[in-house]
């Protein structure tokens, strides 16, 4: 089988937004890289030096057959074995909510990576609120597409929750972006409105630099 080149049209729009945030030639770890399409795109289009971790055997097999350096593993356990500062960027796309301890994961992301790109479904979206508030049922939609009893997602948060957590963990938010129901970028009007209208949040985060260390 001949691996085919991953093109912009082949990957999800939200992944394309993540790809835009990664400078060409960076070293990248994609945590929960699925079938490797984002990683493949980054390598082909941006010449990144990319690695991946993926839990599912199917995803790993597809990734490796494409020629990607991807290991099968539980990211929360395996990321501990990477040394400090070994990647320019660590990507965690739509996976934060499936972690046992999202807070520790964020700290690990910023230990092994100088920066992290994190995207997650926004539990503060008005339809989610309406589902719970008016219908009294757990939401099931495109970004939250499992019934409550069979979901791998165990720690939902809202965009506001994420921003608050970053503050508690002394994490700097370098870029914030919101993605609407169509999967395309929406203007970051205000935290209140974005938290109500966005289905996904997308953040570039870094470790907080001590004030005098930049001199």
């Amino acid at each position, binding site marked *: 089988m001949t691996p085919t080149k991953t093109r912009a049209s082949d990957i999800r729009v939200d992944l394309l937004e993540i790809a835009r945030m990664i400078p060409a030639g960076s070293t990248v770890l994609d945590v929960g890289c699925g079938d490797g399409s984002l990683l493949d795109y980054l390598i082909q289009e941006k010449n990144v030096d990319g690695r991946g971790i993926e839990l599912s*055997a199917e995803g790993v097999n597809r990734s490796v057959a*494409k*020629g990607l350096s991807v290991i*099968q593993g539980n990211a929360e356990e395996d990321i501990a074995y990477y040394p400090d500062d070994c990647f320019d960027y660590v990507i965690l796309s739509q996976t934060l909510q499936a972690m046992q301890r999202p807070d520790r994961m964020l700290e690990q992301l910023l230990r092994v990576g100088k920066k992290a790109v994190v995207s997650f479904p926004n539990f503060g979206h008005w339809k989610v609120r309406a589902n719970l508030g008016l219908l009294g049922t757990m939401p099931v939609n495109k970004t939250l597409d499992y019934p409550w009893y069979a979901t791998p997602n165990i720690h939902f948060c809202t965009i506001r929750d994420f921003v608050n957590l970053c503050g508690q963990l002394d994490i700097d938010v370098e870029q914030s972006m919101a993605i609407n129901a169509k999967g395309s970028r929406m203007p970051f009007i205000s935290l209140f409105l974005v938290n109500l209208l966005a289905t996904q949040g997308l953040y570039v985060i870094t470790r907080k630099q001590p004030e005098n260390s930049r001199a």
Partner: protein
Amino acid sequence: MTEQPVSSPSGETDVENFADVVTLGEGNPLVLDSGEMLGAIEVAYKTWGRLNADKSNAILICHALTGDHYVCGTNPITGKGGWWENMVGPGKPVDTDRYYIICSNVLGSCAGTTGPASLNPITGKAYGPDFPVITLGDMVRAQALLLDHLGIDTLFSVIGGSMGGMQTLQWAAAYPDRVKTVVAIATTWRHSAQNIAFHEVGRQAIMADVNWAHGRYMDDPRAEPPHAGLAVARMAAHITYMSESGLTSRFGRNLQDRDKVAFGFDADFQIESYLRHQGISFVDRFDANSYLYITRAMDYYDLSAPYDGVLAEAFRETKTRFCVISFTSDWLYTTEESRHIVRSLNAVGARVSFANIDMDKGHDSFLLDCPEMNDMVAGFLQSEARSIGVNS
């Protein structure tokens, strides 16, 4: 480095080239890990495909404990197909149309490479127990001598399963500049206490056979070799190559050629009959002393030992790219052991791919037809060949 065996002696350009035995290390004996020296050694090997002009497409395949250099095509010793027909051949994951494949019989074995059954030039008799104890490091040293002889400085890949996988890791650790990529399948970085325990059962079975004669059974051509002991050793080992689920689905408690148990010690159960067959057919093709020496070499194997048990240090600064594959049902060399290799490689920033393939056939899965394994190996080799710029 006087010859260029890139085509068969007859000048044909067949995929299958030739099997040969070369004498290596003449006047420059191999210094073994034990400190002993082994004078000129013979190495039996076979090649397939063609070495390209810049010698960048050579792949060394490393065989397992009881394997030999007949990876594919017909094995003249057994009359059967090679041991890795699923993996190696034209259009296969290890494509003989694209790569130049080399496989040599390991040092200490009995299919043409110097081992305990070979003649000791000093005594004129078989080495037997006088053969020096060898290690995985020594086996790889002998392979490196062969590559020197073939005029190949750098291998595009070293590929192997089980003991072959141990050799691939040893290659990357001992000759980091000579190995571009490594494919290590169903293997480990050091033999565990349990691994050593099973091997000891096998060795004791051989040594308890009176025909073993303290390893000197070859001195008297009329004497019987220790076939009973070797067969038992093979039976015990063979159990470790399979999984309980594989055994249950294939044999269960089914009876062999009878309707009810015979209340005796015949092979009532199919699994007994199968194991006896495995043991008996093994003694026809394998030497008991070789079995002792090679299992010992595996037991001594511990790639982390020179680094106070920190495996990562064996691979520090490595440029080699790794593909590690384990099988969910392999309880001989478990997924956790492969994971330890992978984590150690991650810790030193090595480039590594790893998959734990869901297959219920146990350790021997790597020898069976497994589309996931084939896709991974093919994809890994193709992409690495592309990025390194290997021409076929």
